[in-house]
């Protein structure tokens, strides 16, 4: 009986976590470059009270054993790196990646982080930075007198200076790729950190084998699907409710058992 109580509480805990993950997805439905996550569950260990085939009281081998499951646990919260929809912005420093790859960003402490959010700006020195002011690597500096900026599909950045008619190439936006992007650690601000499970970044040029191409004037929207999340939320909420009913039933049974002894 107490087992049922604990089992049901693992169920409630798991469904609560599912709702937590969904609420973060929903909160980020308009976050540029956001990747939704999903809580994956697995059944906990089974307590084998009697193995199948054990002789019973009459000496016959029993047809089946008794295996009591002890509930559920979260195996992982997995980020799903499906592409989000591209939205046209006409902004010359908005860049979306069509296909695989991440932009490489340098944090103020010198460490590298990765992002799919390509809503870039210029800082005071003309360098291309994220909205938080982190430098995009390798660094590209845009001359202050540039009249137009073009970012090609392969990541080459060219500008036109006043009085010139030809574009001048000033740098390249490189992309990074990971064997297992699900292993990247989210650290907020649309940034991801490599871990031992994601592997090290492989750098390359946009359009190379395995890398996506760049689209200037577009941003990649969040890949959260509202309808899907709402359905998942209902499923999680109901499952939570049902596990709580198990606790109510177990409680009623305990109460009945307690009433026997006077």
């Amino acid at each position, binding site marked *: *009986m107490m*087992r*049922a*109580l604990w089992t049901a509480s*693992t*169920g409630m805990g*798991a*469904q609560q976590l599912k709702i937590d993950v969904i609420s973060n997805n929903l909160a980020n439905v308009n976050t540029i470059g956001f990747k939704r996550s999903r809580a*994956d*569950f*697995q*059944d906990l*260990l*089974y307590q*084998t*009270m*009697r*193995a*199948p*085939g054990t002789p*019973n*009281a*009459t000496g016959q081998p*029993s047809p*089946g*054993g*008794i*295996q*009591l*499951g*002890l*509930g*559920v646990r979260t*195996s*992982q919260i*997995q980020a*799903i790196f*499906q592409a989000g929809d591209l939205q046209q912005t006409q902004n010359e420093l908005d860049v979306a990646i069509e296909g*695989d790859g991440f932009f490489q960003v340098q944090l103020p402490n010198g460490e590298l982080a990765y992002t799919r959010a390509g809503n870039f700006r210029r800082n005071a020195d003309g360098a291309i930075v994220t909205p938080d002011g982190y430098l995009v690597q390798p660094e590209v500096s845009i001359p202050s007198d540039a009249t137009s900026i073009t970012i090609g599909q392969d990541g080459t950045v060219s500008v036109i200076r006043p009085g010139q008619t030809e574009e001048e190439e000033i740098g390249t936006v490189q992309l990074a*790729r990971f*064997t297992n992007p*699900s292993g990247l650690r989210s650290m907020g601000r649309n940034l991801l950190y490599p871990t031992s*499970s*994601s*592997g090290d970044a492989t750098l390359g040029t946009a359009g190379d*084998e*395995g890398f996506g191409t760049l689209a200037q004037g577009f941003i990649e929207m969040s890949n959260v699907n509202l309808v899907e999340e709402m359905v998942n939320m209902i*499923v999680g909420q109901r*499952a939570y409710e*049902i*596990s709580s*009913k*198990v606790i109510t*039933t177990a409680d*009623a*049974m305990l109460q*009945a*058992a307690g*009433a*026997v002894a006077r």
Partner: protein
Amino acid sequence: MHNAMWSAVAGSVFQMRRLDVIANNLANVNTTGFRGDRIMFDSYLAQIDDERFASNRKNVGNISDYMYTATNFQQGELHQTNNPLDVALATEGYFVVQTDKGTMYTRAGNFQFDLEGQLMTGNGFPVQGEGGAIQVRDGLPFEIDEQGSVYQEGEEVGRLQVVQIQNPETMEKVGGKMFKATRATRIAASDDHRVVQGALEGSNVNIVREMGQMVTAGRAFESYQQIISMMDNVNQQANNRLWQVS
């Protein structure tokens, strides 16, 4: 009289175990590829009767000896996820997983890649292909066809091993959505299965059925407790009478 008392106790224990099983089923109602269990009671009462009529009364044994659990191997519903790493079996069959405790079988196809591009289960064990683990070339898109063959740029890089288990009821559940074969399990290579990429198989727990079972278990338990109370009352009255007579 004692028979009635012990029958009620046995019934209570059974209903408690039944709720344990229901609780586990309901806790796993959102667990990919989960298979629900049920518990059965194997005519314990009839055996007590038999032994009463046979003049040599002997110990009737542990109540648990008359219960057994069985797993429901019906398929769960498939639902679309559009994640290329999610794979479901639309037919009978199992994926093969190599763990530190030996070969296991699973219906849960929420896979991922490790550092070297090897296909792993959600809990980090290599998924077996025909002839070893499945290795993809770094970061390139891949497709999985209905037979379970994995392609990258039109070239076959591996094939998911799918087996058919003729008597799944002999397998043992080990948690982590995996089953372990026992000596009695008959495993055959599958030639007739359908793999669906971008979908997952849900849990096969039927909530309505479980809720019904749960209410029944709760009520039955309460009735048994009332029988125990009643027998206790009868005992007490009998004792009082005896006391008065003597």
